[in-house]
């Protein structure tokens, strides 16, 4: 746990100093939301039905961009060799990177969510507690899978293409659950979001445990 915390602190310090992921994600997020909402040009009554899809499409696409960076910084100067040469459990690298990605993706969500409300003229405040819960569950599942596949993609040549190709098909259950849960929360609160939340929670447990167990094999020499 101490090693994971050290990796988390290091990643967040680098991000705070460079703001590379956050700034690129900010620009992409705005552009995506503009494109997705302008393309639909929804009427006021259509907006609640459209919001979950727009929210999660924007989140996944901006998140993909942001998450690539966490392993790319290990590639620069061969820092991955420094980590793998250290006498630490590879699972703690996974946990540290996962935690850093959850924080980063949380920032993405904190930015994307109000913009969805703004662009679709939706008052999200009454549903905010439920939305935060759904966003956290979606964030954790996405980060669990992306951290594992980010470690694979960073070692191949076409890494920018490889990560979305590996990740997006496996994210389909998470996206279905997240959109269902968000729609339920917007329609009437957490009670209506039960099915989607169950899918999200199951996805989180399966892929967090799988990532924790498999990471050592993924980064093995």
């Amino acid at each position, binding site marked *: 746990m101490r090693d994971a915390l*050290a990796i988390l602190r290091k990643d967040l310090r680098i991000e705070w100093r460079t703001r590379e992921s956050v700034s690129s994600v900010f620009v992409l997020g705005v552009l995506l939301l503009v494109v997705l909402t302008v393309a639909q040009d929804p009427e006021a009554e259509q907006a609640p039905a459209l919001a979950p899809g727009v929210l999660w499409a924007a989140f996944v696409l901006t998140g993909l961009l942001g998450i690539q960076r966490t392993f790319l910084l290990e590639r620069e*100067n061969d820092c991955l060799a420094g980590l793998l040469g250290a006498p630490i459990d590879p699972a703690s690298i996974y946990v540290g990177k996962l935690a850093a990605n959850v924080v980063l993706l949380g920032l993405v969500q904190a930015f994307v969510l109000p913009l969805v409300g703004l662009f679709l003229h939706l008052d999200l405040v009454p549903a905010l507690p439920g939305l935060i819960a759904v966003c956290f569950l979606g964030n954790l599942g996405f980060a669990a899978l992306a951290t594992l596949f980010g470690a694979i993609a960073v070692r191949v040549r076409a890494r920018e293409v490889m990560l979305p190709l590996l990740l997006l098909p496996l994210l389909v259950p998470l996206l279905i659950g997240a959109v269902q849960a968000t729609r339920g929360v917007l329609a009437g609160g957490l009670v209506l979001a039960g099915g989607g939340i169950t899918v999200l929670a199951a996805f989180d447990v399966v892929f967090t445990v799988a990532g924790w167990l498999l990471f050592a094999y993924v980064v093995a020499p």
Partner: protein
Amino acid sequence: MPGPPVRAEGLVRTFAGTPVLAGVDLALDAGEVVVLLGPNGAGKTTLLRLLALLLRPSGGRLALFGEDATRASPAVRRRIGYVGHESACYADLTGAENLAFYAELYGVAPARVRDLLDWTGLDGAARRPVRTYSRGMTQRLALARALLHEPDLLLLDEPFSGLDPEAVAQLQTRIGELRTAGHTILLTTHDVERAVPVATRLALLHRGRVAWTRAGGGADAATIVAAYRTVIGGRA
């Protein structure tokens, strides 16, 4: 922990079916400074990455401190320090932050970071991002990182590469200090002139095998160069 730092027997490593190491036999005893010579593509970096446990052998046997390298424990990993072609330091962190991060991973006291910054002469630049360091400063920081946990076996891959004569002299002095302190060192280079003064033994890696070994110490660099050229066909 029993066993010599390195025992390699018939060590093989292939990449996509192409053998880079084709049966390396090499033994390092405690306190030795062995310089591994060889032309580009001889397999020097591959051998060092195997010894640093960053690669797995495709064949043969490798024991580090008496333990099979394919099942090396964290305790063995902790006894190894490795400086590769790149520094393994984060460009956007300062020198001090990089060392503090690795010190935490190795369970080393923060005071050791200050000692090493002082020893490498980087104390004045400790609060600057590594991105602003010169090649020589980066190399010294990488050496400090590898020495944080006081490893018994230090692996240095082309440590003289890209350094000016003053930085080379400083590095040679520091390698001498480490040898005196009892560290076992294996360093690779194709620069015979710079390697001979620090070596207790020299070995030539050619076509994935150790072609010869010679005693270092008072060895004449010209003789070593001649022996090197004889094996590799004039490319020194």
